[in-house]
């Protein structure tokens, strides 16, 4: 069930049963009213445990939430942690030296300022500095997190990044794979890291992903084809 909601709209919630509020929903501390605070599509799912409500909306500014996979830039190094920027001008988050695989007091990570990391948000309280980790804290394995070397970062809207990461039906990556081999890390903070064997392919991928944003899925094939044709032609000339 999805309907358009505007901030301040009335939402019918069964007050007797537990309610879980997701993104875009807010419980006013004074009036105890449950209202949507963003404009988008309302999703209510009802299970035995309770009701889950969230608003699906697109935006550009990322606010950390626990469990999110993110691409960040190291902007500072302290005695026991790095400072990482997840989006420009936002409050930076911290990445502890202990949040790496096989970390110990002696064994320090070797990241330097300017490095890119793929990580997961482990704590996110609005009153506190958020923390990210480069290790799967349940089993201590690296789980694909860590330093991202070379490649290029594309800034996209948060909604587009989520489609790429979570929507298996989304054809963009499959279309792209028909043209070249690539490594990709998608952060729900709107940053996509991509790496290919050749620079011209990276450029083509960069342009394709940027341009496919906000376009309908039928057009993806053509956009990608054009960009790859362009880079191959340029080299031949």
């Amino acid at each position, binding site marked *: 069930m999805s309907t358009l909601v*505007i*901030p301040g709209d009335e939402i019918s919630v069964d007050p007797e049963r537990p309610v879980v509020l997701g993104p875009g929903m*807010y419980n006013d501390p004074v009036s105890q009213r449950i*209202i949507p605070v963003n404009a988008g599509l309302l999703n209510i799912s009802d299970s035995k445990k309770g009701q889950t409500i969230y608003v699906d909306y697109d935006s550009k500014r990322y606010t950390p939430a626990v469990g999110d996979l993110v691409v960040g830039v190291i902007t500072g190094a302290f005695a026991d942690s790095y400072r990482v920027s997840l989006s420009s001008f936002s409050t930076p988050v911290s990445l502890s030296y202990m949040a790496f695989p096989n970390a110990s007091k002696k064994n320090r990570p070797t990241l330097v300022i300017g490095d890119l990391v793929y990580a997961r948000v482990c704590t996110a309280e609005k009153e506190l500095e958020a923390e990210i980790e480069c290790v799967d804290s349940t089993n201590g394995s690296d789980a694909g997190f860590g330093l991202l070397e070379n490649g290029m970062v594309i800034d996209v809207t948060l909604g587009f990044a989520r489609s790429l990461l979570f929507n298996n039906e989304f054809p963009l990556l499959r279309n792209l794979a028909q043209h070249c081999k690539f490594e990709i890390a998608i952060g729900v903070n709107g940053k996509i890291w991509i790496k290919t064997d050749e620079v011209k392919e990276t450029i083509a991928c960069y342009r394709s992903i940027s341009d496919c944003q906000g376009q309908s899925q039928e057009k993806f094939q053509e956009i990608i084809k054009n960009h790859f044709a362009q880079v191959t032609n340029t080299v031949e000339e």
Partner: protein
Amino acid sequence: MNTRTGYLENVDGSCLYSLNSTKVIAAVTGPVEPKARQELPTQLALEINIRPACGVPTTREVNIQDKVRAVITPTLALYKYPRQLCQITLQLLQAGETESYFHELELVACVNSTTYALVDSGIALKGIALGTTIVITEGNKLITEPTDENLKNAKSTHVVVYMIENSKPTNLLLMDSYGDFDQNDVFKVLEQSEIKINELNKNFREYMKTKLNNL
């Protein structure tokens, strides 16, 4: 009225707004890290900058800023973003009125465009603020969305902004009136503006619907 959100690339939310010959671009960035002196321990800080269509900002713009702040603050879910900052910049492209006498049309344009830009930015809002200008002529006629000429010959000028929650104007956020009028005029203006704002709200919902459908 003409609006276009997402007009600017590098800010979180933006809107190009025009009504008759008043034109403004609203840009919203936030929540971002504030400067130390702006930081509020429990809530979102708000910074509003208005740049006039020509010249540098003066006390006139500070006055409009003050009113926009009074209107926008109650619509924001401030406590959702402690120690954060929201920056709103409004660049007027065309005043649409004689700037030395009036600020009414620009004020309404600033409020409405900010609302669109805030929704575009995804900052949490408790409701939306929409407003309109009304003048009462020498012959006691009410004109909504007046022109510069209407303003010049009006007996009184009024700006009314309502907070819209659940598709209904619920709370009067601002009424700013100048000229010569009596209490009946005040209530007539409030009544008339409520009708107009309902219409603006309908447009707003329609706009959001088409925007979502295009995605």
